[in-house]
């Protein structure tokens, strides 16, 4: 990379079970307003402000075709460039990064929003499956996650207790995050005795329904340094897809995440992520995913994700803290999920983590989309 691209400011709403007080555009403006206030930037056409916006939202979730239209007015989209990513918000950050890297823009706004409280998650997920072979079976992401969890447990002897530890750790971390929706001090037994959703996944193994938004501003190096004294540089990005048919995939492993991570590490010049990266904010919609994704990110060998959490290494005070924010299990909406991982990574590297602050000069954010982490994206950030 000839010139570095930095994230200069991030903003999140407090994540809540339901936000009946705001429409999508009003929700998004909460985070956009914070960024405009913090940076002093305005939307301009002359290269002195924000040049463009990339937003992430989903038509089905918002109940309108082209879900970025209703938020165009609050993301600078009035007579100005705005483009939408319908997969996870981390891809919107990736898109903005590429826009700046191409030389086309200098400063780009990225937003992601979803109000999960407004409709049925299972139905939206069902409609993403093949209408000929799969929709009629009633597939959704929770039951697919259960199929993956069972396969992973079978293949490597991962236990339900090890998965429950993820919930206990992340909800405890969330107690130190003022934006977290559902912080809690839990015991492993609380998780194991919560009501079953889809064996082996229980109520507390799944991220709760959540409403919220996240936004950030990316800028090329020269401008980033003027906009903040603590820019966070995007040092590497990688993404990888996996097959459409769930039965085609070996669900006990995550080859696509392994490849996405390798691509990001190569770009960032990382050879040993466990030693070189100090904090990890990753997308665990279900508890087992944190264990499987830590394997995919190369923090431990295949099948050792359970042992890794038992060792305490991924705790807030461990060697490689994973999800000091409390993760998705503490409540972050889909689509916002991956962008909020990037935001939390930036917060850590800027030293703004408050009670959840850890010591790190490099951070990793991971986002995903589709059933069982079908599409993966890994971003390495540094100061």
């Amino acid at each position, binding site marked *: 990379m000839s010139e570095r691209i930095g994230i200069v400011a991030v903003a999140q709403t407090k994540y809540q079970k339901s936000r*009946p*007080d705001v429409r999508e555009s009003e929700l998004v403006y909460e985070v956009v307003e914070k960024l405009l206030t913090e940076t002093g930037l305005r939307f301009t056409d002359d290269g002195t402000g924000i040049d463009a916006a990339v937003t992430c939202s989903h038509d*089905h979730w918002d*109940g309108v075709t082209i879900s970025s239209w209703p938020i165009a007015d609050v993301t600078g989209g009035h007579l100005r460039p705005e483009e939408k990513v319908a997969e996870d918000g981390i891809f919107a950050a990736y898109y903005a990064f590429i826009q700046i890297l191409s030389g086309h823009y200098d400063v780009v706004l990225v937003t992601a929003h979803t109000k999960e409280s407004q409709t*049925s998650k*299972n*139905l939206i997920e*069902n409609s993403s499956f*093949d*209408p*000929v*072979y*799969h*929709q*009629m*079976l*009633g*597939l*959704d992401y*929770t*039951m697919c996650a*259960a*199929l*993956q*969890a*069972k*396969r992973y447990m*079978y293949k490597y002897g991962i236990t339900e207790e090890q998965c429950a530890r993820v919930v206990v750790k992340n909800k405890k971390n969330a107690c130190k995050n003022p934006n977290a929706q559902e912080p809690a001090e839990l015991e492993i037994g609380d998780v194991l005795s919560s*009501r*079953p*959703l*889809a*064996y*082996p*996944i229980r109520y507390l193994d799944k991220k709760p329904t959540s409403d919220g938004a996240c936004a950030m501003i990316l800028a090329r190096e020269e401008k980033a340094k003027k906009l903040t004294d603590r820019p966070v540089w995007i040092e590497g990005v990688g993404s990888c897809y996996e*097959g459409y*048919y*769930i*039965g*085609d995939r070996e*669900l006990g492993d995550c080859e696509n995440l392994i490849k996405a991570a390798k691509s990001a590490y190569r770009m960032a010049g990382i050879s040993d992520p466990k030693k070189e990266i100090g904090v990890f904010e990753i997308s665990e919609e279900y508890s087992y995913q944190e264990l499987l994704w830590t394997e995919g990110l190369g923090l431990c060998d295949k099948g050792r994700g359970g042992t890794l959490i038992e060792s305490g290494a991924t705790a807030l005070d461990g060697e490689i803290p994973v999800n000091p924010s409390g993760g998705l299990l503490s409540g972050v909406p889909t689509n916002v999920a991956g962008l909020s991982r990037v935001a939390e990574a930036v917060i850590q590297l800027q030293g703004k983590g408050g009670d959840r602050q850890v010591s790190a000069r490099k951070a990793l954010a991971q986002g995903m989309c589709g059933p069982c982490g079908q599409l993966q994206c890994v971003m390495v950030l540094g100061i």
Partner: protein
Amino acid sequence: MLLFPGKIIMDYSHAAGRVGSRFLAELKKSKRLLAIRCRTCNRVYIPPRLTCKTCFHNMEDWIELDGRGTLLTYTTVYYGEPVLDREAPTTYGIIRLDGADTGLVHFLNEVKQQDLRVGLRLEPVFKNERNGNILDIKYFRPIKSG
């Protein structure tokens, strides 16, 4: 605060395509499960699709499977699903059919919870009145001995 109700109801006519149409027609007509094989990599796909995802050419070698297979993973779902006219709990599995290289997702039935395990040998049960869709397979059950 006012909550404003909304609803999207859309009718679709999804094309099953020439590969999917043949698979579903055979399922309806004769309870036969057809897979499709790639001549280059020899991978056998079920459900069948036109193009091999690793070799990037269209497939035309049809293979009839006998429907028996091995359970790769499973789950029992305890919540209802509004798309389906079925009651919770429902058990799903991914089944590697003999002769295929991919897994087929479907329902499991006629099996006790304590007997569910990865590796279980299964056979399909078909509907008597079939409509040319994936639900013409009613479910998979453990192979009856004998």
